[in-house]
């Protein structure tokens, strides 16, 4: 008996070992990548945030000075925080509604479906720099198209990008143009809604609104969840569009000075690497906190078809 069981046990052992070796080998690129491109930089930036560092001389330890200065003596920092929070809080719900809604329509079996999908994806394909410059052009009153309809009506149009009162809402509006990837996510999610649920709802005499409310929305909540989490990070990182639109200045009157732009300026224009690292870590903390809150809230509103929360 023992002599029979022996080889089996040894083989199973070696299979486990082989799995571990294979698992680590296959994951090796990412194990190295995680260490070199994520873990090390994250720790290094935490260290830099406590130093005065211009990237040429070696960093000089100054304790919490960077953080203290950010919180107590830097108006631009608070302006950037305000602008970014304003952008995130308004644009994220709007983006969810717009991309979900458009995906619903683009999922319908209609003619020219492919053409429509391509058109809605179009702004997402245009290089951000070209797109941003076109937007500046279109949304400059007096030369761009934006106020032509107002001229027809004989009303003086808004000042859009050129004055602080309008610039923030305008850039939120513009950001809604680049929801192509989100539309694709919702479209993909909609492929998974089981047809028999709709059929069952039909039998129960549900109308379109009921079906949307009680079938589509619950099944789609995981996609909304994914979108919500990624767009929080996305909004906090909002950089290229406002950077190009304002030529990196955040004009008018600093109303488009987003957190990432101010951070970039500190790091690569003023070479305050330590100060910029402190900003990056504060951003990280906020992102982490918001994400945790969203994850916590998930069990109240995210519905998993399998019945288990992953």
């Amino acid at each position, binding site marked *: 008996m023992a002599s029979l069981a022996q080889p089996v046990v040894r083989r199973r052992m070696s299979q486990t070992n082989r*799995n*571990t070796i*294979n*698992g*680590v080998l*296959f*994951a090796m*690129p*990412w*194990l*190295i*990548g*995680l260490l*070199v*491109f994520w873990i090390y*930089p*994250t720790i290094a*930036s935490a260290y*830099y945030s406590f130093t005065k560092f211009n990237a040429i001389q070696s960093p000089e330890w100054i304790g919490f000075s960077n953080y203290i200065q950010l919180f107590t003596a830097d108006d631009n920092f608070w302006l950037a925080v305000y602008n970014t929070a304003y952008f995130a809080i308004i644009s994220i719900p709007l983006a969810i509604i717009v991309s979900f809604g458009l995906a619903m*329509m683009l999922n319908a079996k*209609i003619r020219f479906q*492919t053409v*429509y999908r*391509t*058109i*809605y994806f*179009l*702004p997402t*394909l*245009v*290089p*951000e*720099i*070209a797109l941003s410059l*076109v*937007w500046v052009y*279109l949304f400059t009153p*007096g*030369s*761009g*198209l934006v106020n*032509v309809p107002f*001229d027809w009506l004989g009303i003086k149009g808004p000042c859009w990008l050129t004055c602080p009162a309008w610039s923030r809402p305008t850039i939120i509006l513009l950001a809604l143009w680049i929801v192509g*990837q989100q539309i*694709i*996510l919702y479209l*993909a999610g909609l*492929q*998974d809604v089981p047809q028999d649920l709709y059929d069952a709802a039909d039998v129960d005499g549900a109308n379109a609104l009921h079906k949307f409310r009680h079938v589509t929305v619950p099944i789609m909540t*995981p996609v909304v969840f*994914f979108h919500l989490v*990624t767009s929080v*990070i996305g909004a906090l*990182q909002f950089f290229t569009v406002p950077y190009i639109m304002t030529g990196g200045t955040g004009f008018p009157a600093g109303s488009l000075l987003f957190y990432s732009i101010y951070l970039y300026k500190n*790091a690569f224009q003023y070479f305050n690497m330590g100060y910029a690292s402190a900003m*990056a870590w504060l*951003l*990280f903390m906020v992102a*982490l906190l918001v*994400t945790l809150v969203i994850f916590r809230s998930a069990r109240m509103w995210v519905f998993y078809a399998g019945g288990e929360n992953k």
Partner: protein
Amino acid sequence: MAITTDKALANASAARGRLIQKRIRGAIRSVFIHTSLIPIAFVFMLPFLWMLSTSLKTDQQLFTYPPEWIPNPFNWANYPNTVTYITFFLYLRNTLIIAVSATFGALLSCSLVAYSLARIPWPGRNFLFILTVATLMLPFQVTLIPLFLVFKNIGWVGDFRPLIVPHFFGSALYIFLLRQFFMSIPMELSEAARMDGANEFRIYWSVILPLAKAALATVAIFEFIARWRDYLGPLIYLSNQKLYVLSLGLYEYSSQYGREWGLLMAASVLITLPIILLFFFLQKTFVQGIALTGIKG
């Protein structure tokens, strides 16, 4: 007999009635959808149409107010001029080198890692997966400066390596997508291949990858478009003009004297067209690829 036939007939006509009703309702619905989609489609096309229109205008035509949609006459000269105003083809070559290598690297590394996470049971893989998802939550600003300094210290700043090499070491989003997809492939397939004496790499290469074409295509397109459009990376790492990519080249149309709008927009159209075509022909694969990977967890 007669009664049953009558009944059957009545049933049939009722069914036809329902069918017609359904058709009419379907037609009304599609008219409704088209009438909402068309105006919004126009809004979404607006930036591109404006790009196209501006790319065909001379400087004089640019500054008429109200602006005209269809330039009269078409100034086609912007197109041949724009490819010489900046070294367009050199930048195109640079962009392609970076985008193609990075895409290749991402496909290779992410599929290997995803395979490990999805199909090899080993201690620590769940922890690695959590860590992977966690990096999705890390703003790029946190790693930006130390990475820049690392590349600076090893002398890579100024060439393509910082823009290519990291992509050979995995990327959380793609690993996540591919893992979800690989998990949906029945384990029996691997078992059968193992019985036939295939080793793990062989199973990955000849069993799993061929089944994952849609998911791999999705990752490839995402990565290619991302690199094609990337601005911040080249902005930070490239300083030698000979190595510039298209997104940086677009900046050369602006100077202290103003902006060469016509030429800039012509270049923008040229840059955008290839990816529009790519998307148009591949969008089905796209949607399917993501649907199959099951973002829903």
